[in-house]
C-alpha cells in the first residue's frame, strides 16, 4: 500500500479535490485519508463553506457621484 497521505499534504490538495481535477489515484488517497481523519474532513467542509459564503457577497452600494456619472453616461449614449 502506498504511504498514507499526511494532513499537511492533504490541505494543499483541497482545491483540486473540490474542483475535481485530481488524478484518480491521488483522489483515492485523499478519500482514504478523509475516512479516518476528522480534522481534514472538517477542513474540507470549511473550504466548501468558504466558497459558498464568498458566493453570497454582494458588493457595497455605489456612491451618489458614481451613480450620477453612470446615469449621465447612459443618457448621453441614449441621445446619441
Amino acid at each position, binding site marked *: 500500500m502506498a504511504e498514507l497521505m*499526511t*494532513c*499537511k*499534504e492533504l*490541505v*494543499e490538495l*483541497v*482545491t*483540486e479535490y473540490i*474542483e475535481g*481535477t485530481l488524478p484518480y489515484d491521488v483522489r483515492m488517497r485523499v478519500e482514504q485519508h478523509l475516512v479516518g*481523519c*476528522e*480534522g*481534514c474532513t*472538517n*477542513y474540507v*467542509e*470549511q*473550504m466548501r*463553506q*468558504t*466558497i459558498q*459564503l*464568498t*458566493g*453570497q*457577497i454582494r*458588493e*457595497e*452600494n*455605489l456612491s451618489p457621484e*458614481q*451613480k450620477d*456619472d*453612470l*446615469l449621465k*453616461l*447612459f*443618457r448621453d*449614449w*441614449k441621445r446619441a
Partner: protein
Amino acid sequence: MNASVDEASLLNSLRAGDESAFVWLVEQYHATLVRLARLFVSDEPTAEELAQETWLAVLQGLERFQHRSSLKTWIFTILANKAKTRSQREKRTIAFSDLDDPASDSPTVDPDRFKPASEGVWAGHWVEGPIQWREIPEDSLLHDETMKVILQAIDLLPGTQRAVITLRDMQELSTDEVCNILGITETNQRVLLHRARAKVRQALEEYLQPEH
C-alpha cells in the same frame, strides 16, 4: 448573473434604453469592475474611469452582443481588454500573468498546526484539527459581519489572487472564463484560487470558532 433575472429580457430593456435596467446592472457589477481595474492601473480615479469606459463600450456593443458568453462574462472581458490596453499605454507593460505572487509555493496552512518530523508516524498530522464551525446565521447582523470578514480577507490578498477569487467565487464564473479574461493558464488559476481560498478560510476560522 442573478438567477432571478432573465438575461434576454434584461438585454431587451437595455436595448430599448430602459434606465432602470442599466441602474440594476451597474449596481450589480460596477464595484467589481473597479476592483478588477485596480489590478492593471496605478490609481483609483483611473480605475473608475476604466470602469466607466467599459460601461460605454457595453452600451455601444449591445446590438452586436451575440450570447456566445453570458452578459456578465462579456462585461468583464471588455474591462480586462481595456485595462490591458491602458496599462500598455501607461508604459506599465506588466502582463497580468507576470504579476508576481510572492511565495507561491509556500504552505497555505501554518506549519505549526502540524506535528513535526520528531513525532514519527504522526508527523504531518494536525496538532489540533479544524473543528466544525458554529452555525452560520442567515439574514442577520451576524451574517453581514461574516460577509465583512470575507471581503476584508479578500482585500488583503495579492492582486492576482484577489482577481481570481473575485471572478471564480464571488461572480461564480467558470475556470475557462476566468483564464480567458485574465490571460492565465488553468494551472496558474488553480494555484491562485487555492491560496486565496485558504486565506479567506483562515480569516473565517478565526471569526467562526465556537465560543469557548
